[in-house]
C-alpha cells in the first residue's frame, strides 16, 4: 500500500509540474504584459523606460528562465501581487477557496441525497415509470446548458416570484437561514446537471450487484428485501460510485466557474474568470494551478479510495 501510494503521489506531482509549465506558458501568451498595463496608466512613460522595466522584472528572459524564477519564488511562498485586488495573491485565494468549498459541499450533499435513493429505487423497480423518468432526467441534465439553467432559475425565483436573491453572498455574520437563501439557487444549478447521471450510475451498479451470488445467499438465509438492498447491495454498489464522485471533481469545478459567474458567488471559479478577463496574471496563474492540483488530487483520491474500499483489488497492478 505504501509503495503504491508513493508511486501514485510522485506521478501526480510530476504531472502537476509539467502542467504548471504549460499553464505558465499559456498565461504568457495572453494579450499584453504587466508593463503594457503600466504604460497605459502612465502617459509620461517612454519606450526606453518600458524596456528598462521589462529587463528589471525579467520579462525579456526566455520563457523557461522566467518559469524557473517564478517557481523558485513560489516555492519560497511568494506568489506575487494581484493586480485587481492589490493584495498578495495567496490572501485573495484563501477566502475564495472557502466560498467555493462551501458551495461544492452543499451541491455534493444535495446530489448524493437525491441520486442514491433515486438510483436504488430505479434499479429495484427496473423498467418502471420511475426508472424511465430517472433516465430522462439524466439525459436532460447532461444536455442543458448550465448557465441557461441558472438564468431560468433566476428568472423564475428571483424575478417572477421574488422568493430568493438573484445572486451574491450573504453578508458576514448573517443567520444561517439567510446564508442558505443565497446558497440555494447556485447549489441547485450546480447539482441539477449531475443528479441524473449519478442516479443512473447507482442504478447500473445496483443492477450489477443484485445479480451476484452473495445477494441470493443473503436472500436464501432469510434476510428481508429492504435489508438486502440497503445493507448488502448498496454497500458494494457505492464502491464504484465513490470513484465516480472523485473523478467528477474536475467537472464540478468547471460547473462552479459558470455558476459562480452567473450568481456573482465570490469563489474560485469567478476569481479565475475575473483574473483572466482582467489581465491579472499572477492571480490567474496561481488559481489555475490550484484548480489543476485539486483535480489531480481528486483523481488520486479516486484511485486510493477504490483500493481502500474494495479489498479485492490488488494494489500496484496498474501503473
Amino acid at each position: 500500500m505504501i509503495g503504491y501510494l508513493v508511486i501514485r503521489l510522485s506521478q501526480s506531482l510530476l504531472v502537476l509540474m509539467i502542467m504548471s509549465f504549460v499553464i505558465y506558458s499559456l498565461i504568457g501568451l495572453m494579450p499584453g504584459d504587466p508593463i503594457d498595463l503600466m504604460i497605459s496608466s502612465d502617459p509620461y512613460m517612454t519606450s526606453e523606460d518600458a524596456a528598462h522595466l521589462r529587463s528589471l522584472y525579467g520579462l525579456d528572459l526566455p520563457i523557461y528562465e522566467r518559469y524557473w524564477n517564478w517557481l523558485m519564488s513560489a516555492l519560497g511562498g511568494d506568489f506575487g501581487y494581484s493586480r485587481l485586488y492589490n493584495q498578495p495573491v495567496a490572501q485573495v485565494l484563501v477566502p475564495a477557496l472557502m466560498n467555493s468549498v462551501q458551495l461544492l459541499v452543499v451541491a455534493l450533499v444535495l446530489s448524493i441525497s437525491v441520486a442514491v435513493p433515486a438510483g436504488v429505487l430505479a434499479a429495484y423497480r427496473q423498467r418502471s415509470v420511475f426508472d424511465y423518468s430517472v433516465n430522462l432526467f439524466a439525459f436532460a441534465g447532461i444536455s442543458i446548458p448550465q448557465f441557461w439553467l441558472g438564468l431560468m432559475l433566476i428568472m423564475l425565483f428571483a424575478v417572477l416570484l421574488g422568493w430568493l436573491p438573484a445572486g451574491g453572498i450573504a453578508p458576514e455574520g448573517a443567520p444561517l437561514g439567510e446564508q442558505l437563501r443565497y446558497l440555494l439557487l447556485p447549489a441547485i444549478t450546480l447539482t441539477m446537471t449531475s443528479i441524473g447521471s449519478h442516479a443512473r450510475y447507482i442504478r447500473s451498479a445496483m443492477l450489477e450487484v443484485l445479480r451476484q451470488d452473495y445477494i441470493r445467499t443473503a436472500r436464501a438465509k432469510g434476510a428481508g428485501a429492504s435489508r438486502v438492498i440497503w445493507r448488502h447491495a448498496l454497500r458494494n454498489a457505492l464502491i464504484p460510485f465513490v470513484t465516480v464522485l472523485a473523478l467528477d471533481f474536475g467537472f464540478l469545478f468547471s460547473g462552479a466557474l459558470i455558476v459562480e459567474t452567473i450568481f456573482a458567488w465570490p469563489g474560485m471559479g469567478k476569481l479565475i474568470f475575473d483574473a483572466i478577463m482582467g489581465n491579472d496574471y499572477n492571480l490567474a496563474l496561481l488559481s489555475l494551478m490550484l484548480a489543476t492540483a485539486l483535480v489531480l488530487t481528486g483523481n488520486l483520491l479516486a484511485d486510493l479510495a477504490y483500493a481502500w474500499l474494495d479489498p479485492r483489488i490488488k494494489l500496484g497492478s496498474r501503473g
Partner: protein
Amino acid sequence: MKHYSPTQLALKRLRSHKLAMISIGILVSLAILVISADLFTALLGIDPNAVNLMNRTAPPSAEHWLGTDVLGRDVLARLLYGGRVSLFVGLTAALAAASIGTFIGLCAGYFGGRLDALLMRTTDSVLALPALPVLIVLAALDLKKIGLPDEIAYSENVSFFRIVFIVALLGWTTVARLVRGATLTIKERDFVFAAEGSGGSHFGIMFRHILPNLVSSIIVAVTLSTGSVILLESTLSFLGLGIQPPMASWGAMLTNAQETIWEAPMLAVYPGLLILITVISFNFLGDGLQDALDPRATS
C-alpha cells in the same frame, strides 16, 4: 427465410429506438431550417445583423415573428443564423477531435511500449486539466503572440476557427482511450497477423485493417461529443469568449440576457431552449446508435 446484413440489422435496431428516431427527425428539420435561413430572410426582407434602435425588444409582429432583441435585430433570423454556427462548430470540432483521438489511439494501441506509455500519460495530463478554465485561457490568448499575422489574428471569422481548434485540442482524449483499448484487442486477431505476414506496412495495417473495425464505436463517440461541443461553444460564447458579434450563435445570443432579463425575458428563453433540444437529440441519437451498433454492450 430472409437474411439481413449486419448494417440492415443495425438499422432495424435503430428504428425500434423511438427516442433516437424522434431525435433524427428533430435534427434533420433543424438542419433544413438553418440551411434555408438565407431563403427565409430574403423572403421577409430581413437582415439578421441590421441594428434598429428605434425598434428595441419589440413584441412578435407580422414582420418580426419572434420580436426583436435589445439592438432591434430580428430574433428569429438570428436564431436561424446562430443555429447554423452552433451546429457547424459542434460537428466540425467533434470530427476534428475524433480524428486526432483516432490517430493517437491507433498509434498507442498498435505500437505499444514506450510510445503507448508516453501517449497515454499525455492523455492523462490533458484530462487532469480543469477543462473550462483552460478553455477560457485558450480562448483569451493573443493570436499575434503565437506568430499569426495581423490579417488573420484580427479577422472577423477567426473566432469561429479558434473555437473549433481549441475544443479539438482538448477534446480528443475520450476517443483516444476508446480507440487504444479496441486496437489492443483487435491487433491480436488472426487477420492482422495474416496482413503482417503478407508484408503489409504498419500504417496500412492500422488504417486498412484495424480502423474499419472501430468505425461504429467512433460514430457513437462523435455523435455524443457533438452534443457536448455545442454545450461548450454556447458556454464560451455566453461568457463573451466564443463566437464574436456581429456573427450570431445560440450561446452568443445569451451573452447579455442576464442584464435584460427584466425587460425582455423571452430573449433569454429561445436560444437556450434550442440548445437544450439540439444537445438532447444528439445524446438520444448517440444512445440509440450505441444500442444498434453494439448490441452486446446494452445495459
